[in-house]
């Protein structure tokens, strides 16, 4: 196929996906488990869910799994043997299908982050083997705020192929990378070449509540503002927001095993936990929850922008949707942009 753009019917798309599995690719797509929506390995394409605003879990663990064995050691008769898992890692070629554009942006940022400097062989190798087929958003809810953080509902960054649902059960698609091209090529006749189209009418419109620059500026001098305490009073200090966030990348290195045999694991960690910054001395620089909440917001909207010229948030809204205490990030950011002066009545 020579064109960068194409159309495909829903039915044919499913055929392509079925075929992808048949030829030995790993297909990961949104599926339901109970009331929740996860990205899971799919064997039957019928189980793929298309009609949703946002999944509950982000797809980040395809490149940054919740547990990653990094190193194993063995002691035998005075000798220590090490196994480097980075060398052993052989990720399967994986098609990640059905992500929202914001997740694709988030994945690209996450990969970029891990690959900075010395790089991260684990994330790097997985990213190389990952093809991301995302679907633009035709719906949104009040938790969504991608447009306010510089991401759009049909953002093409990070995706290898971007699909937009159009009329008659069809998708309009754009091939964005070589990996995307390879995927479409394998689909053969199912993909019907098409001229570039303006599909804006199908994309959901989302009000821009604030701009990234606004937020970053406001936060620059907001470290000691009383709002942090007011806003986080109801925060219970769990790690939900960080674990469902497609961009949160903090981890904890754990050694398991005995003196003679063991494995070193990299596990997700959360700045929301009180243990996160606890020193051996007993001192905790962030000893109350408001400080931890502030850290999360500051990190994403102030520190990362300062260092890397981008935000640590794509506005997917998962943290707010799943927060047990209804800590709504968009709402907090709105308050912050209103100069952090308008004090909420519930303080």
């Amino acid at each position, binding site marked *: 196929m020579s064109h960068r753009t194409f159309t495909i019917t829903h039915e044919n798309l499913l055929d392509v996906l079925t075929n992808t599995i048949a030829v030995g690719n790993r297909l990961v797509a949104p599926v339901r488990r109970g009331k929740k929506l*996860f990205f*899971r390995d799919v064997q039957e394409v019928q189980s793929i869910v298309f009609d949703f605003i946002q999944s509950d*879990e982000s797809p980040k*663990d*395809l490149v940054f*799994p*919740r*547990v*990653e*064995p990094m190193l194993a050691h063995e002691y035998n008769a005075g000798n220590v043997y090490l196994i480097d*898992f980075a060398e*052993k*890692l*052989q*990720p*399967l070629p994986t098609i990640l299908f059905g992500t929202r554009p914001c997740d694709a942006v988030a994945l690209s940022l996450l990969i970029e982050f891990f690959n900075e400097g010395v790089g991260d062989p*684990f994330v790097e190798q*997985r990213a190389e083997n990952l093809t991301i087929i995302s679907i633009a958003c035709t719906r949104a809810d009040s938790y969504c705020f991608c447009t306010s953080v510089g991401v759009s509902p049909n953002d093409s960054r990070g995706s290898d192929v971007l699909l937009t649902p159009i009329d008659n059960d069809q998708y309009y698609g754009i091939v964005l990378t070589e990996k995307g091209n390879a995927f479409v090529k394998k689909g053969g006749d199912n993909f019907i070449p098409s001229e570039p189209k303006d599909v804006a009418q199908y994309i959901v419109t989302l009000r821009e509540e604030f701009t990234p620059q606004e937020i970053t500026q406001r936060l620059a001098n907001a470290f000691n503002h009383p709002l942090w305490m007011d806003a986080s009073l109801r925060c219970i200090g769990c790690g939900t927001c960080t674990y469902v966030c497609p961009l949160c990348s903090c981890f904890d290195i754990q050694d398991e095993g005995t003196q003679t045999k063991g*494995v070193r694991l990299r596990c997700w960690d959360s700045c929301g936990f009180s243990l996160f910054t606890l020193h051996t001395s007993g001192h905790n620089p962030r000893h109350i929850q408001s400080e931890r909440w502030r850290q999360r917001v500051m990190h994403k909207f102030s520190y990362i922008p300062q260092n890397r010229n981008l935000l640590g948030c794509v506005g997917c809204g998962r943290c707010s949707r799943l927060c047990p205490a209804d800590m709504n990030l968009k709402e907090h950011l709105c308050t912050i942009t209103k100069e952090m002066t308008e004090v909420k009545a519930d303080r």
Partner: protein
Amino acid sequence: MKEFEPKIVAFVCNWCTYAGADLTGTSRIHYAPNVRVVRFPCTGRIDYNLIIKAFERGADGVIVSGCHPNDCHYTSGNFHARRRWIVFRTLLEYIGIDPRRIIFSWVSAAEGAKWADLVNKAVREIRELGPAKEFINMKQWYEFEKALGGFRG
């Protein structure tokens, strides 16, 4: 093929069952060699987490034994332990782990023969149940996930 030889850990109290097992020795009563004894001051000291750890690390069965009711060296440690076991056992069963893998018993310092009998029966029963497949199952990811490198739900 060689018969499956279960690995069994016995958590025993110092004053009754450990002494009872000593008596088995002084009486030269032979029994199956599959058991490794861990000595506690009292059954009240036995943490259920240690039982879990034993299974996770590869035990196929666990024996927990102490003084008969009213014989506790510390008067009531075994009563407290018994309560804990009632709850722990039920929860294990609820979460799908065969409670027959944990054998609870009272063996006094005078019951050397009972100790030998207990061990032999435990070995026989656990052998029939086979390896602790639930825990082997849980540990699988260490093996196959190497290919994918990491664990996802």
